């Protein structure tokens, strides 16, 4: 597999003002992610994982440092450019799914046609996540796992180069969580998409090509897994 760097962080900081003190949610982060990799960002609650992911997805802006996506510096982007970046390249899966409650599963996925051309057919995307039979139900009529799968279908329908997932199994039970993990792993393995997943669950480290450990706003370690496990083999 030829290695091609898709993402690079250079001394990235994110700080918040807390009263008269400054608080670093992320401090001097340096990392790089190759195209097609399955990356797991691991760390306890409050460590700065979501902050990192948000920066990656252009949903937030860094206080200092540089973030490169395919050689382009995101930190120099304007709001409009960031929006375009998200629309073209990034798919997001949230912990609480964040589907539009007034749209059916099908419509939630079809929504992507409004922002990007060349999206996958919603039916196909939903079939790919095993929801062909529930397409016309509203989110409130779906189980948590089904909602999360809809949200994955929504993310992959765009054919994004980067799939970001923030605690995608956080609200799911073990079995459903596993199915979701399997789906994500498949995205990276067969479709050659870069998947970055945030979790506080250290068991997930086994399925990743790369594991980035975060604590107190700093990157502790970056490890490479030569033989990642299949999602089915993980237990927690």
């Amino acid at each position, binding site marked *: 597999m030829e290695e091609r760097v898709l993402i690079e962080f250079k001394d990235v900081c994110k700080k918040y003002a807390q009263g008269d003190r400054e608080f670093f949610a992320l401090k001097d982060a340096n990392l790089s992610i190759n195209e097609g990799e399955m990356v797991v960002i691991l760390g306890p609650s409050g460590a700065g994982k*979501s*902050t990192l992911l*948000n920066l990656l*997805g252009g*949903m*937030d*802006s860094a206080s200092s440092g540089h973030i490169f996506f395919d050689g382009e510096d995101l930190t120099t982007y304007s*709001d*409009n450019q960031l*929006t*375009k*970046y*998200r*629309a*073209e390249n*990034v798919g*997001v899966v*949230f912990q*609480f799914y*964040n*589907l*539009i*409650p*007034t*749209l059916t599963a099908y*419509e939630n996925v*079809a*929504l*992507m*046609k*409004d*922002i*990007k051309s060349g999206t996958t057919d919603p039916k196909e995307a939903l079939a790919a996540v095993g929801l062909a039979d529930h397409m016309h139900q509203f989110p409130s009529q779906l189980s948590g796992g089904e909602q999360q799968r809809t949200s994955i279908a*929504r993310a992959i329908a*765009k054919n994004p180069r980067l799939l970001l997932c923030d605690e995608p199994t956080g*609200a799911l039970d073990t079995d459903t969580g596993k199915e979701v993990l399997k789906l994500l792993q498949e995205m990276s393995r067969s479709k050659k998409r870069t998947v970055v997943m945030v979790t506080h669950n250290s068991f997930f480290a086994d399925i990743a090509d790369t594991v980035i450990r975060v604590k107190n706003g700093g990157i502790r370690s970056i490890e490479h897994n030569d033989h990642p496990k299949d999602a089915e083999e993980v237990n927690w």
Partner: protein
Amino acid sequence: MLLRKMWRDLSKNKAQFISIFLMSFLGMFVFVGIDAESSGAGESADSYYREYHLCDLWVMGAGFSDDDLRLAAKVKGVKNVEKRLSLTGTAEKTDNAYMYVNFMEENDINSLMLYEGEAFDGQKDGFWLEEWFARTNKINIGDTFSIKIDSMKIDGRVRGIVDAPDYVYYVSESDLMYPNYKKCGVAFMAPGMYPDAENIVYNQLLVDIADEFSSEEQLSMIKRKLENRFDRDDIAVTDRDQNLSFATFDAEIRQHKAMGAMFAVVFVAIALLGIVTTMARVTAGQRIQIGTMKALGFSKAAITLHYVSYGFVISAAGCILGAFLGSKVMPAWILSMFEGSYLVPDLSGQVTGLDMAVTVLAIFVSTTVSFLSCRKELKDPPAVTLKPPAPKKVRHSGFEKSRLWLRLDFSTQWNIRDVMRNKLRSLMGILGVMGCAMLLVCGFGCFDSIKGLMDKMYGELMTAKNKIVLSSDADADYAYDLAVRYRGQMIEEKKVEFVSDTAKKSGSATIVDKGNFIHIQDRKLNPVKLTDKGIAMTSKMAGLLGIGVGDRIRWHFVGDDKWQNTRVEQIYRDPSIQGITMRKEVFEEMEYTFKPTAVLTNKSVDPSLSEEDEVSTVLNIEGMKAAFSETMEILNAMVYVMVLAAVFLGVVVLYNLGVLSFVEKTREVATLKVLGFSSPKIRQILQKQNLWLTIIGIIAGLYAGWGMLYVICTTVSDTLDMFPILYFPTYVWSIGGTFLVSVSVNLLFSGKVKNIDMVDALKGVE
């Protein structure tokens, strides 16, 4: 897909969006409706005046010759002049109806509009009668008809049924404002019909001014030139604004416009508030969704457009539909009430550029308001929007730290906090209740004020039970005999023209003999004694002329060339007749002869009296009151609109408010339930707040309603000096009605407290 989301969101928040829709609908319905009505009626009248050449100036005097006619025609800007003899008489065949009688040869000015029969011809004999009079009295072409003018009698056949542009509105001198065509009419005929045709003396010149000289300044210049050219004391040149028919119709239209604007302001303001609160809630409630859409890559513009289109779609639908239906329904309805009051042919509504502009503006403002209210959620980057909102900074006010606060019970504390933290929502509630109470107070107040006015006119200022109106046949001796026989009081009523430095007005003069049936009141409505030193003037007339006690005023009786320059000794207030009052002695001191026109008495009058030639009619106080209340028909209709609008407004605003606060409080209510509060207890807590807001709204509404009533009363017309009155039942009805609306809407919601499912309400994750 976003479109689909919009429709679903709209239907999910149905109640609120419908209420916004209804408010924009009603605001536009009333505004465009009344504006289209008044503009259309104005336009109908204008084109009628233009087509039938309503004269621009009237020159009135004791007599005009053909030389005078030529003299007037020579004034630059004058296009055409005609002479006319205008008198009053009675029609014997129709129960001695009061008749305006006009003799003229030409008829290119104030041309008659023919309904039936043959066109007017100054050479032929016969009568041309005003249509409503003819119709009401079932007079047809070819019927014989006769008119008595003083002691002269004119007989002939009816040749034509017509309308005249200078008799769009006419009433007999004893009718106050409302036309009674059974008892009053207009007749036109050729000079040949005048008994002493050889020696006919014309008393009017009708002046038509060329279009290019019709500006205000040029008109008043021509008016001055005419006055100078004749250089006689007995003439008066008046313009359209001084013409009863023109001015009355014009004032009516202007009053409608003012009313329409007032309604529209109230409704549009409340619709806007509704949009602000609803949109703010919808966007706040969809905060996470907005963040999600952003994270998915929707541009800010696309999301803004999406939410702004909510406000746009709703207000556009409401405004356009309201404007459309309003312009169809309102004019038809109001103009149907004009029927028989104003004789303008082809009255119809007309949508103006202003209507369209206001509709567009209303939609624009609503859209802008919804833009502003969702901008807040759109400003932040998605990472921030995706998190639940930072709780509002809870600042404890000084009051919350005070000792008093600690002694309040929980529900009071909770409600005070809730009101303070939802100021806009609370404000909307107060405004809605206030609008409701205001319209009710003002509406019922109109009835009260009219009743008060009548009670004052017939009962305080004029206390006689009967008024024997004398004809011009009656001389002073006849009147004196009547006064003795009925122990009555003699009065003389005459038309007067006043000239001050700033204005020229016509009004009436009442000259009173000894007796106890005519009373006057000062500005503060306290009874005062009529001065015996000179003249007393009504406060409204004094105001119009810009003078006060001690100032001098130039005046003369219409048709009399003797001018007076008199000091005003006293100012009094009269609701319906504007002018001057003086004692007979004062009148005679000015070297006039007292010739009574009416005798007032408390004794019952012999019915055969009205048969006598010297008596024109006998009026009793009940009849006068009834005739007066008929004049208020259109005002009454406005009052019904107001009361309906009030109730509607109250229901819509409070319902909207109820939905808003109910949805916002669902979690809190569920929490209270979990904590063990019973449903009735919670209902009680919720209702406390509504009670406060309702009471504040009602108090504010009482003041605002009084203010609105004051404006209506003082602007109603030049001749009516109405004073706002509120009787006790009005307070009861207004306060009670508002409470009823408020309480019943709230009951609707507090019933739902029981249905809140604790588990469901608290399950939602953030």
